[in-house]
């Protein structure tokens, strides 16, 4: 399938159209809302489903050297991308060092919802992927936060001595990570037998729940853009569009060395190209409260997430086919 065919198929998928519906409803100030508890319940369901499925795949295929290589690549990408993002933001925008560090943390870390949507895009394209990439997603959440904190503390010498222990605990035991990794481990222990028991719950409703969840993401993104869009300068908005492409290119280079499948390469590229809007914003509110959430949350959720969902995913799938020769 060519690049344009992939893009058209993705743009006309129910997932993207529901996201667009939510986004437009928020911009039009519709009273359509999804209550917080339902949104959180759906997020937990998606983490459980994707984590469990990944664990079952690892049960079937076992752990190999490629998994360790992918983990190492994930850590390096997550730690390195904020350095590039920070330098670019400082050179091309008027963001303070602290805001630039906070924004760059989001781009080094990952968006698990973008990843979930990418797994669907990969499946729709008829490809499979390495189940352990779920674990790589969890591993990639944290290094970016640490890099960004080091960058921010250069600008705030008075904060250099503050301990990181409590923060690392809060990041590591963040609810979404616990759910994702816990479900992955349960899937890896119980394997296909466990899958048979709960597949009516985690397989059949998955796409419908994902559509409803993306409707909610569209609402939150549209509302964020309406409220916070005016705070984003053109340089910052452009960063939200080109930074995923830089990260995707770095991931593609690392995948050349790793030898992942086409589907796995597309997911690894997506992980690097996505920007966090669940775990990192909460971590930034604790570690860097001086940074403005209206900038990093709006940029990640209202600019980069829609870009990745609509144009990024088919582009990363196409790039993966070129890298892996699939």
């Amino acid at each position, binding site marked *: 399938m060519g690049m344009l065919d992939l893009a058209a198929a993705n743009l006309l998928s129910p997932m993207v159209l529901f996201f667009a519906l939510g986004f437009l409803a928020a911009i039009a100030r519709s009273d359509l809302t999804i209550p917080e508890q339902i949104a959180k319940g759906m997020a937990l369901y998606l983490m459980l489903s994707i984590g469990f499925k990944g664990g079952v795949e690892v049960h079937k295929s076992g752990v190999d050297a490629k998994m360790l290589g992918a983990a190492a690549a994930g850590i390096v990408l997550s730690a390195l991308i904020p350095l590039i993002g920070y330098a670019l933001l400082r050179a091309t925008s008027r963001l303070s060092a602290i805001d630039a560090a906070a924004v760059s943390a989001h781009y080094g870390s990952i968006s698990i919802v973008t990843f979930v949507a990418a797994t669907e895009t990969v499946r729709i394209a008829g490809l499979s992927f390495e189940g352990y990439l779920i674990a790589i997603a969890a591993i990639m959440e944290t290094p970016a936060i640490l890099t960004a904190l080091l960058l921010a503390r250069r600008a705030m010498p008075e904060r250099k001595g503050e301990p990181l222990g409590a923060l690392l605990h809060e990041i590591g035991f963040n609810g979404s990570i616990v759910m994702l990794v816990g479900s992955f481990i349960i899937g890896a222990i119980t394997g296909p037998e466990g899958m048979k028991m709960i597949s009516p719950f985690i397989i059949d409703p998955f796409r419908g729940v994902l559509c409803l969840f993306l409707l909610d993401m569209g609402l*939150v993104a549209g509302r964020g853009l309406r409220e916070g869009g005016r705070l984003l300068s053109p340089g910052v908005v452009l960063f939200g569009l080109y930074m995923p492409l830089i990260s995707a290119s770095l991931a593609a280079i690392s995948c050349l060395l790793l030898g992942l499948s086409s589907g796995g390469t597309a997911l690894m590229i997506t992980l690097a190209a996505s920007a966090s809007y669940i775990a990192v914003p909460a971590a930034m509110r604790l570690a860097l409260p001086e940074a403005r*959430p209206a900038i990093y949350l709006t940029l990640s959720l209202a600019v980069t997430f829609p870009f990745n969902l609509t144009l990024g995913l088919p582009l990363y799938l196409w790039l993966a086919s070129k890298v892996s020769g699939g």
Partner: protein
Amino acid sequence: MDMHRKKRIEIILEAPAMNRLSTALEAAGVTGYTVLPVLAGKGKTGAWTRDGLVGGAGAMVCVICITDPARVDAVLERIMAVLSRQIGLVTIGDVDVVRGERF
């Protein structure tokens, strides 16, 4: 009925800092507190609403605690150690309670 004069401290703060605040309140010797979800609002940093949120960032909570007037300064010191850099609001008022020995 006998009434006892106490202080009611109401803290509105961003949800990610809630665990740190509860630890601070317990360290300050506060005997209890109540946490309430708050729906939406607007402040110096702009408008916010809980609707549709998945992560803690962007959500606010309200914490109410009743304490003895003699302990207010110590409690506030602990609260501000958490809250000084976060988005939030602290108000203090006088209240009368029935069972004064509990606070």
